[in-house]
C-alpha cells in the first residue's frame, strides 16, 4: 500500500504568538517548530499500517527550506521518502493544489492528513484535495482499519462517533486516538539523514484568499478572586456583573 502523509511545520503548542512587519508576518524568532500534532497522529497510523501490511509512506510538506528539520523528523519516525514543495503555504487552496498534483502523479492508495493545522486551523486541505481528486474524504477520523481495498473508519461527531465503510483510495483527516504519537529512535534518526527528500517548485500559484493583517486578542482585565467559603458571591457576580446566567 502506498500512503501519502501531509505534514505541517508549526510552532510548538506552548508558543506565545507574536507578529512583525506591521502585523503581517508571524514572528518565528526563537520559536520551536514541530510536526502538527494531528499530522503526527496521521503519520503514526501510516507507519503502523506499513509495519503490519507492507508498502511505503511518503511525507509531503509545502514550505520553505526551514521546514526540512521537521520533514527529517517524519522520516526518522518511519516515513520512507519525502517531498517538499518549495513555497510559503499562502492559503488552503494553494496547498491543496500542490498535494493533489503530487497525488495525481503517484496514485497513492491512501492520503492521510491532520484534521486541522494548528497555525491556521482551517481544516480545509483534506476536503479540497479530495474534491480535486474526485475522492471521498472523511474527517475527523479516530480509528482506521484497512482490509484489502476496504477501510473501516470511526469518525467523531458531536457527542459520539459514527462507523463508516469505504473503498480505497480516499483522504482522511486524522485525530487521536487513531494511533499513539511515535518518538524517533536513534536508528530512525540516523537513517533519516540519507532517506530521499525531493524538492520541487510549486505547480501553480493560484490562491483564493489573501492576508490583510494579523491581530492579537485584547488582554484579560484580571481575575476577580472570591473566597472559598462564599460561593454565593460568585453566583451573584455571574448574574449581575457578567450577566452570563
Amino acid at each position, binding site marked *: 500500500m502506498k500512503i501519502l502523509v501531509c505534514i505541517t511545520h508549526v510552532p510548538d503548542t506552548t508558543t506565545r*504568538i507574536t507578529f512583525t512587519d506591521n502585523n503581517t508576518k508571524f514572528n518565528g524568532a526563537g520559536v520551536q517548530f514541530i510536526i502538527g500534532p494531528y499530522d503526527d497522529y496521521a503519520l503514526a497510523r501510516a507507519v503502523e499500517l506499513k509495519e503490519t501490511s507492507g508498502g511505503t509512506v511518503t511525507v509531503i510538506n509545502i514550505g520553505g527550506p526551514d521546514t526540512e528539520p521537521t520533514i527529517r523528523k517524519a522520516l526518522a519516525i518511519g516515513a520512507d521518502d519525502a517531498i517538499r514543495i518549495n513555497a510559503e503555504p499562502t492559503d488552503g487552496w494553494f496547498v491543496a493544489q500542490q498535494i493533489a498534483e503530487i497525488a495525481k502523479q503517484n496514485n497513492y492508495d491512501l492520503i492521510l492528513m491532520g484534521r486541522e493545522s494548528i497555525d491556521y486551523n482551517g481544516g480545509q486541505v483534506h476536503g479540497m484535495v479530495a474534491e480535486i481528486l474526485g475522492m471521498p474524504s472523511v474527517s475527523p477520523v479516530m480509528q482506521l482499519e484497512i482490509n484489502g481495498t476496504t477501510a473501516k473508519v470511526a469518525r467523531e*461527531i458531536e457527542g459520539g462517533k459514527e*462507523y463508516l465503510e469505504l473503498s480505497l483510495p480516499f483522504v482522511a483527516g486524522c485525530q487521536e486516538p487513531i494511533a499513539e504519537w511515535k518518538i524517533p529512535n536513534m536508528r530512525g534518526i540516523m537513517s533519516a539523514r540519507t532517506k530521499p527528500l525531493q524538492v520541487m517548485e510549486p505547480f501553480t500559484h493560484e490562491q483564493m484568499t489573501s492576508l490583510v493583517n494579523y491581530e492579537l486578542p485584547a488582554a484579560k482585565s484580571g481575575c476577580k478572586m472570591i473566597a*472559598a*467559603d462564599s460561593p454565593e458571591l460568585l453566583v451573584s457576580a455571574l448574574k449581575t456583573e457578567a450577566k452570563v446566567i
Partner: protein
Amino acid sequence: MAVLVFIEIAEGEIKKSSLEAVSYAKSVADAMGTSVTALALGTISNSELENAAKHGATKVLHAADAVYNNQVINAYTTALVEAAKAEGSTVIVLEKSSIVDAIAPRIAARLNASLASNVTELPNLSNGFEVECSIFTGKAFAVNKLTAPIKVLAIKKNAHAAIDHGTAATITAFNPSLSAADSAVKHISTEKATGDILLTEADIVVSGGRGLKASENWHLIENLAKTLGAATGCSKPVSDMHWRPHHEHVGQTGIKVSPSLYIAVGISGAIQHIAGISSSKVIVAINSDPEAPIFKAADYGIVGDAFQILPKLTAAFEAAK
C-alpha cells in the same frame, strides 16, 4: 443572489448554532441588499423550519430524503452546491460543526470559491470582502480578503447572536440529484450519548481536570452542570486515562468551545487547554493552587478544594434559580 445558509438538524430539531448562522446570514444579506435562503437536509417538521425562518430566512429549501439523516459528507456537499447554484448565491454561510468541517472545503473547492474558516465577525464589505478568522487555536486572528466571486464562510459559535426577526418563509421541497459518488461512504452505525447537552452547542460548560482525582468523583461536576443546564468537559489527561469519553476533551487537540460561561475545576490551565477555551465569554477557575496558570486566563477565581467547594457552589446556583 440570495445568501445561502445551511441549517443543521440534530435529533429532529434545528441546532441552536444554526439559528445563529441564519441570523448571521441575515446581517450579511442586509448589507448586500439581498435575502436569505436556508437549506435543511433530512427529516424535520415544518414548524421547526418556520423557526429557522423567523431568524432571518425568507425561503427555506428542504431536501427531506432520509438519506440525509446521517451526516453523509458527499451527499451534503452536492446538496449545498446545487442549492447555491439554484439560488445564484455568492455567499454561503455555515456554522462550524463536525459535518460542516468536513463539507465546507469540498463545497468551496467544487464552486471555485474562497473559504474562510473560524470566522468570528460579520464581513467588512467596505474594501472588497474581508473577514476576521480565529487562528493559532484562538491565540490570534487573521483578517483575510476573500478574492474569488463566491465566498464560503464557516463561522464560529457566538460570531453572531440568534435573533428572532419574526420573518416568515416559503418552504419549498428540494431534490438535489445525487450521483453514485455521493454514496461512496457507507454508514454502518452511530454511537452517541443521547440526552446530553452537546459540548459544542452548550452555552455553559463545566469542565474537570486531574484535580478531581478519579472518575468516581465526576458526579460533583455533573451535579453542577445539571443545575446550570450545562455540558460537561474535561482536560486531555482525564480522557487519556478514560475517566471521561474522548468527545469531552477540550483544548488544542480536542474540542474548541466558545460558551458564555466556562467553569474549569481542578484544571491547571496548560496553554494547550487554554487554547480550546479562550473564546469563552467568561471563565471561572476553581483550583487549590493559587499559582495555577488557569487564574491568568480566568475572569473569576476561587482558591480551594474542589471537593468542598463544588457541593456548596451547586447549592448556591440552585438557590439563585
